[in-house]
């Protein structure tokens, strides 16, 4: 659908690199590189252009609430005076980068609260469903839900972050047939209705994972956030072939059977990550379409960034808010809603790709789900590359088994002590010992998960839970098992080696090193991401 504001968006596509192909822009943390790919054996996967957003988001939201999918009554029919209503919503990890105000969560929550007020519901809690992520700050919560909602609920203690380590605040709802404990937020479990407000940035998000993971703690998460499950999630972006999702779906059944009524509201956004206009617009243009002004702007931007200290560069990027537009909203029964949501994510992101490649290259940007307003430490670099981008496929991995992954990122040996205290120990002590996910899980996970200081910092400060770096490592365990070698271009050599990867100064060095593994003249595929794309590999 178009509304005449922009030309019809072009779909994603695969470019075969020839001699006339200009250098390709690679993200490189808070900076960029222009890389010339070998002609005749390289290809570049470009994301689709941004789909048009819904012209009237408020109307679309209201329509979804009144016309639910699946076996669900319209939301007003589920609301009554005297009931307990809990509204849970996605945390700071979505969307990426944070979107411009008003955030989708604010729009949806305001609509839900209007209906609740109309129905006379006065026992309402709003919970950031962050599982074992760090708590959101007041500013971050205000950004997500809006000042009006924040001021109405937070001062009374009715808007808060989940505390998955509060022994009185969590319950076990039961066990799946596979023996998985279903750990759940007590307030949500004891509510007459849980409304979940989601932003589905990638196809991994949403569905039963919203509540079975977002409202759980370590006791429940350990059943699917583990090496075995993640090695059998091929990919974790493809729900129907993901053991991670199968476990969450089993848990969803237990939650439902325990009498927890969930009204799921899922939304999708387009991939207008950097804007059609403005200083970063050229990041979502195709290089051969750059104008002279674009090239001058890029050179000025890169030169300016190069002379800035890394923390200043980071702060500049942290101020960027994406002009995302909502492309769909659907509400009702969890599974019915999620089927439609996934189709809408695919409509924006899926790009057909024929065949695998020997070498997969990617430029990693400055942000991932776990360093919003923070530092992209080396473990997060690994997770973004091997956990997220590698898994952005359906069918087969983009790179063949035994192939090489080349990532571009500065990979500084740097950590945010408030947000990632256990990451520092994981990097200094665990990875210094072994990078094998199975060994790491067996020997170290429990100690970190039960470390009293990490738990204290998670509950009272703004720290990710002690076990979180393990999950980052497990997220990449499918890729680690699949790949023959991982090379990072332009990274801190010591940090790269600590990850168990190889450092390279330039892409051409990296490709030469890769040929040791995959042979001379390998095929190369560059995944030009972000804006986000997902490869449909046949």
């Amino acid at each position, binding site marked *: 659908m178009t509304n005449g504001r922009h030309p019809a968006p072009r779909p994603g596509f695969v470019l075969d690199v020839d001699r006339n192909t200009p250098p390709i822009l690679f993200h490189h943390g808070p900076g960029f590189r222009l890389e010339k790919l070998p002609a005749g054996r390289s290809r570049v996967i470009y994301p689709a252009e941004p789909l048009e957003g819904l012209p009237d988001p408020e109307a679309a939201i209201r329509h979804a609430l009144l016309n639910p999918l699946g076996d669900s009554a319209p939301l007003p029919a589920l609301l009554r005076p005297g009931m307990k209503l809990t509204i849970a919503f996605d945390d700071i990890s979505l969307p990426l980068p944070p979107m411009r105000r008003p955030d989708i969560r604010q729009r949806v929550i305001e609509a839900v609260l209007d209906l609740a007020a109309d129905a006379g519901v006065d026992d309402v809690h709003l919970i950031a469903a962050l599982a074992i992520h760090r708590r959101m700050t007041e500013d971050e919560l205000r950004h997500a839900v809006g000042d009006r909602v924040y001021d109405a609920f937070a001062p009374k203690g009715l808007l808060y972050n989940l505390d998955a380590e509060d022994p009185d605040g969590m319950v076990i709802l039961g066990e799946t047939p596979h023996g998985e404990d279903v750990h759940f937020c007590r307030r949500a479990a004891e509510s007459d209705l849980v409304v979940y407000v989601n932003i589905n940035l990638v196809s991994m998000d949403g569905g039963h994972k919203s509540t079975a993971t977002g409202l759980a703690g370590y006791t429940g998460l350990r059943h699917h956030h583990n090496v075995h499950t993640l090695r059998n999630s091929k990919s974790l972006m493809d729900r129907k072939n993901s053991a991670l999702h199968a476990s969450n779906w089993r848990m969803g059944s237990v939650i439902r059977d325990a009498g927890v009524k969930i009204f799921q509201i899922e939304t999708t956004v387009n991939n207008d990550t950097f804007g059609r206009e403005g200083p970063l617009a050229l990041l979502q243009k195709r290089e051969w379409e750059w104008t002279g002004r674009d090239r001058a702007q890029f050179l000025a931007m890169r030169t300016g960034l190069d002379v800035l200290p890394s923390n200043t560069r980071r702060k500049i990027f942290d101020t960027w808010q994406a002009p995302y537009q909502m492309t769909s909203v659907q509400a009702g029964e969890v599974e019915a809603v999620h089927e439609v949501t996934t189709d809408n994510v695919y409509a924006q992101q899926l790009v057909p790709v024929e065949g695998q490649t020997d070498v997969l290259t990617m430029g990693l940007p400055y942000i991932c789900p776990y360093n919003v307003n923070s530092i992209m430490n080396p473990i997060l670099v690994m997770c973004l590359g091997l956990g997220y981008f590698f898994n952005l496929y359906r069918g087969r991995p983009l790179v063949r088994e035994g192939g090489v992954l080349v990532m571009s990122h500065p990979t500084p040996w740097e950590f*945010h*002590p*408030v*947000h*990632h*205290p256990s990451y*520092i*120990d994981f990097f*200094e*002590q665990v990875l*210094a010992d072994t990078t094998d996910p199975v060994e790491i899980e067996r020997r170290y996970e429990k*100690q*970190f998960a039960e*470390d*009293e*200081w990490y738990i*204290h*910092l998670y509950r*009272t*400060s*703004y*720290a990710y839970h002690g076990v979180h770096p393990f999950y980052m490592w497990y997220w990449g365990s499918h890729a680690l098992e699949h790949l023959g070698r991982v090379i990072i271009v332009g990274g801190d050599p010591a940090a790269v080696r600590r990850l168990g990867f190889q450092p390279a100064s330039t892409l051409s060095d990296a490709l030469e090193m890769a040929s040791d593994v995959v042979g001379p003249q390998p095929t190369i595929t560059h995944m030009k991401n972000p804006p986000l794309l997902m490869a449909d590999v046949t």
Partner: protein
Amino acid sequence: MKALRFRRNLPRYAAARLAGSLTPGRGATVGPLELVDLDPPAEPGPDWVRVRPRLSGICGSDLATVDGRSARYFEPLVSFPFVPGHEVVGDLDDDQRVVLEPVLGCASRNITPACAACTDGRLGNCEHTTFGDLSPGIQTGSCHDTGGGWATAFHAHPSQLHPVPDGLSDEAAVMVEPTACGVHAAFTARVPDDGVVAVLGAGTLGLVTIAALRAHTTPRTIVATARYPDQRRLADELGADLVVAPDEVRRAVRRAAGTRAIGGNGQGPEGDVDRLTGGADTVIDCVGSSSSLTDALAIARPGGRIVLLGMPAVVELELTPLWHRELELVGSYTYGTEALPDGSTARTFDLAFDLVTRADLGRLVTATYPLARYREALQHAASAGSRGAVKVAFDLRDERERNAR
């Protein structure tokens, strides 16, 4: 005979201090140490015997002397000129191989009755190191009258000598003396069963201490710091559970002890680790610097024990945690007699002989030099860690050199 002699020479001492501060070990080039031909020393007493060194080690205290970093504390406790060298395996005139226990206590000084410490077998605590028949000197290697190990010959009192079993190599035997220091520190540490102990430094002393802790105590976790890859590997092989870089030790001990931390001196971000609220039961500081002692005070639990094994000089230290956390700070100097868990006692050297054999500590001798190349030897020893070495020693087994008069 040939010997490396250290004279009292203040200008050269100052030059050594300057050179050593620029390049560790460089004090050997410009300082008071010189290679000389000497007449064989007179026997200090009727019972004394001649020892012809085979291997003679270079230790941290020797390097401090050569580089002019020794504390002035020692000035009245030595007698000039002296021949350094106290880690020695050598031959007696009847070809019996011996290891030297270098402390010069009441027995070697011919003092009767012996002081209380010597009577108890605590030779390192001898109260008479400046008295008796010998010139001042706490050990062979700092006493003018006895000579020292960095020579083709010196004299030793029979009470200082331990026969070397036939199967023990010279390299293993020369490690007995430093190993005895580690064994003594392990006993001094009073490590509680299932406790957490941190060993700061993985040079020779740190490594032998780790081996001694593993042999004679039963901690839950030994955390060690190591600056260089080979040190890290050896610390791991000798029994450390966790080996980290020195600047990572606070976080490592926090995790091992399962305690909380205070960040940024109370001003910094939460999640930073400036000091621990609990910590290690015992910290053994094998470095002895301001930095290592500050780390020790930051990671020892309240009521914990810090053992200072590395030789310090003048250090700058915030002692408030010692007071506030009621920490014990105790020195560990040399060796003597140890009280074993079963109530019996044993000489530290006997335990060290056993540990050297069991832990194959002879492998720590990684480079040897003839006396003539003493400048290279001392510079190598001063940068041993970064050059992949642990113990550097003089090799005096060359017959021409040994028999030169």
